[in-house]
C-alpha cells in the first residue's frame, strides 16, 4: 500500500521532467567540408609518422623499463625469500645430543658453522640459545644438563668468531619437549639446543 503511494508520487515528478528534457534537445549540425592542399597533406603525413615513431620508441623504452623493474623486484623477492628461508633455517634447525651428554656431535658442529655464517651476515641479530633434555632422568639434573647443552653451542659459536654479547643461554630442562610422545624417537628430538632470535 505504502509502496504504491511512493511510486505514484515519483511518477508525478518524473513524467513532466522527462518531457521537459527531451523538448530541449539540440538539433544536430552538419560539419562543413574542409579544404586541404596536397603539400600540406604531405607535411601532415610526415609529422604523423614521426610522432608515431617517437611514440613507438617511447613505448619500447617504457616496456623495457617495466621489464627491468619486474626483474629487479623478482630478484629482490627471491633474495628476501632466501633471506627468510635462511633465517627460518637458523631458527628451526636444532642441534641434537646423546642421552646425558652435552658434547657437540659432528652434525651439530656443521649446523653451528652454518649458524655462525648467518650470524656474521646479520651482525645486528642477537640470539637466545635454549638447552633442552628428554623426559628421562630427574628434572633437577636435566635443568643443569640443559644449561650445559646451551653453553656448549655458545662456546663453539664464540670460537667461530661470534661475539658472546650477542648470545644468551637458557635451560628449560625437560619442561618444553619438542615432541610430547614418550619414546626413543621423541626423546632424540627433545635432546636439543634451539635458537631463538631476540
Amino acid at each position: 500500500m505504502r509502496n504504491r503511494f511512493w511510486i505514484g508520487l515519483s511518477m508525478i515528478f518524473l513524467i513532466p521532467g522527462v518531457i521537459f528534457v527531451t523538448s530541449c534537445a539540440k538539433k544536430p549540425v552538419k560539419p562543413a567540408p574542409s579544404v586541404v592542399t596536397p603539400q600540406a597533406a604531405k607535411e601532415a603525413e610526415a609529422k604523423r609518422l614521426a610522432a608515431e615513431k617517437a611514440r613507438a620508441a617511447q613505448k619500447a623504452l617504457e616496456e623495457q623499463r617495466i621489464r627491468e623493474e619486474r626483474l629487479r623486484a623478482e630478484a629482490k623477492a627471491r633474495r628476501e625469500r632466501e633471506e627468510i628461508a635462511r633465517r627460518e633455517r637458523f631458527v628451526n634447525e636444532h642441534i641434537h645430543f646423546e642421552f646425558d651428554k652435552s658434547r657437540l656431535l659432528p652434525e651439530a658442529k656443521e649446523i653451528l658453522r652454518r649458524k655462525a655464517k648467518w650470524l656474521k651476515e646479520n651482525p645486528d641479530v642477537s640470539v637466545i640459545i635454549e638447552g633442552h633434555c628428554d623426559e628421562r632422568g630427574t628434572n633437577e639434573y636435566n635443568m643443569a644438563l640443559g644449561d650445559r647443552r646451551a653453553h656448549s653451542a655458545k662456546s663453539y659459536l664464540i670460537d667461530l668468531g661470534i661475539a658472546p654479547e650477542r648470545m644468551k643461554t637458557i635451560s628449560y630442562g625437560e619442561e618444553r619437549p619438542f615432541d610430547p610422545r614418550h619414546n626413543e624417537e621423541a626423546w632424540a628430538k627433545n635432546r636439543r639446543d634451539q635458537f631463538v632470535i631476540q
Partner: protein
Amino acid sequence: MRSSQTTRYRSRLSEQTGFAPVGVPEYRNTGASREREGKNSFIQDSGKIRRSLIVALVFVGLLFWSALPCQARVYIDITAPYLRKIPTAVPLLKDMGPHNSPNKLTKTLADLLADTLAYTGFFQILDRRSFLEDPQQAGLMQHVINFKNWTDVGAELLVKGGLERRGNLLKVELRLFDTFGGRLIIGKRYTCHLADQRRVIRRFCNDIIRRLTGHEGIFNTQIAFVSTTTGHKEIYIADFDGYNPRQFTNTRAITLFPAWSSDGQYLAYTDYKRGSPDLYIKNIKERRGTVVSFPGSNITPAWAPGKFALAASLSYKGNPSIYLLTGKGKIIKKLTHHWGIDVSPAWSPDGKKLAFVSNRSGSPQIYIKDIESGKVRRLTFKGKYNTSPQWSPRGDYIAYTGLENGQTNIYLISTNGGCPVQLTRDAGKNESPAWSPDGSMIAFSSTREGPSRIYVMNANGWNQRRLLVLKGEQTDPTWSPRLSFR
C-alpha cells in the same frame, strides 16, 4: 566432683605444658570478653589464625594421673627398619550432650582420628563392625571399661572419646588406653570452635605419637609441591595428609624446586617469571622476598639447617656449581669447584656436610662434601644415574632418585655408602624424595597411575599411597619442618 577434677587438671596443665589456662573461663564468658581474651592469648601463641576462629578457639588439655607410671615405655620404635603395626580400635565417639544419641559428628571425629593415626603407618585401624560394645552406652573412664571387649577383637590400643556440642562450640574428650595393661595412657579435654575440630584431633594424635614413640609427630607439617592445575607449573601447599591444597605462586610461568627454610617461614624456588630460571626467596606469610637473577640457571635451592642461608646451583660462570648464599640472595662463597655439573645440594641435619649431584665421573652420581675440611667423597657407585639426594632428619641415610634399566625409582643409601635399598619398583617413574621432619616418612612423585601425582610412604618403603588428587600433574614435593599448630 567433675568440676573440682577439672580445676586440678587445669592447674596441672599450666605447669606441664605451658599453655595459659585461659580456656574454661573464656568458654563461660560472654562473646565480647571471649574475643578480647582470645586475641591476647592466641595470636601470641601461633601467630596466624583466622580471626573469626580465634573468637571461640579454646582448648584445655588434661593430663591424667594414671598416665605417669607408664611414661617410660616406648610402644613404637620409629627408627626400627620394620614395624609391626599396632592393632588399634577407634570406636565412634560418645555424644555426651543431653540427647545422648549418635550423630554425624561422633562419626566424623572418630573417622578423622582413625585416618590421622593410620596416616603414620604405625597403626592397624580395626573394623568397627567387629566391636562388641555400643559406644553410646559404654563409659569413657578406665574403671568402667571392660577391656576384655577390646582384647577379644584384637585391639592393643583403644582410642575412646566423647563430645558435646553447643551451637558452634564443641567440647571433646579423648583418651588412649592400653587394652592389655588395662590402663589409660593419655587423656585430654578440649573446648573449641566447631570449625577447629580437625586441629583438635591433630593435636591429640600428636600427643599420642609423642607418648608412643618418644618423638614429636608430624601432624603440624605441610607439603609444598609443584602442580599444573592452572595450566602452568605453580607451587601449591597442602597439609601433611593432602588436606586443603592451596595455590602459593601465581606467575603463569614455570615454577620449580620449592625448598622450605628450617624455621618454616621461607620458601625458595626457581621461577621463569622474568624469562629465565631465577631463584626466588619468599617469606610465606608476608609473600615478599628476594630474587637471585644471575645469567644462566639459578636452580635447586636447599636451606642450611638453622640458618638464614641456602645452597643453590648457579651457572653464571659457565658451568652449574653450588654456591652458598645468604637469605637475602648474596653469594657468600662457592662450595663446589669442578668443570662439570654440580647440582641438587642437600644439607646434613647438623649442617656440617653437603650432599650434591655431580657428573665429574662421567655420569650423575651423589657426592658428599665435608664443609670444614673441604673433602669430597663419592657416595653412590651402583647404577649410572643417581640424583636428587635428600638427607634423612636423623642423618643416617640419604634418599635419592636412581635410573636403572630405564626405570626411575627411589633408593635409600647409608651415608657411609654400601648397598642401596630400593624403595619403589614397577610403578611408573618415581622421583624427588622428601623426608618428613621426624624421618618416619618419605613423600615423592610418581606416574604409577598415569599423570604424575604426590605419594607418601614409610621410610622403609611400606604403605605407599597417593597424597591427594588435583587437576593437572604434581611433582617436586618438599616437606615443611614442624610448624605451630594453627
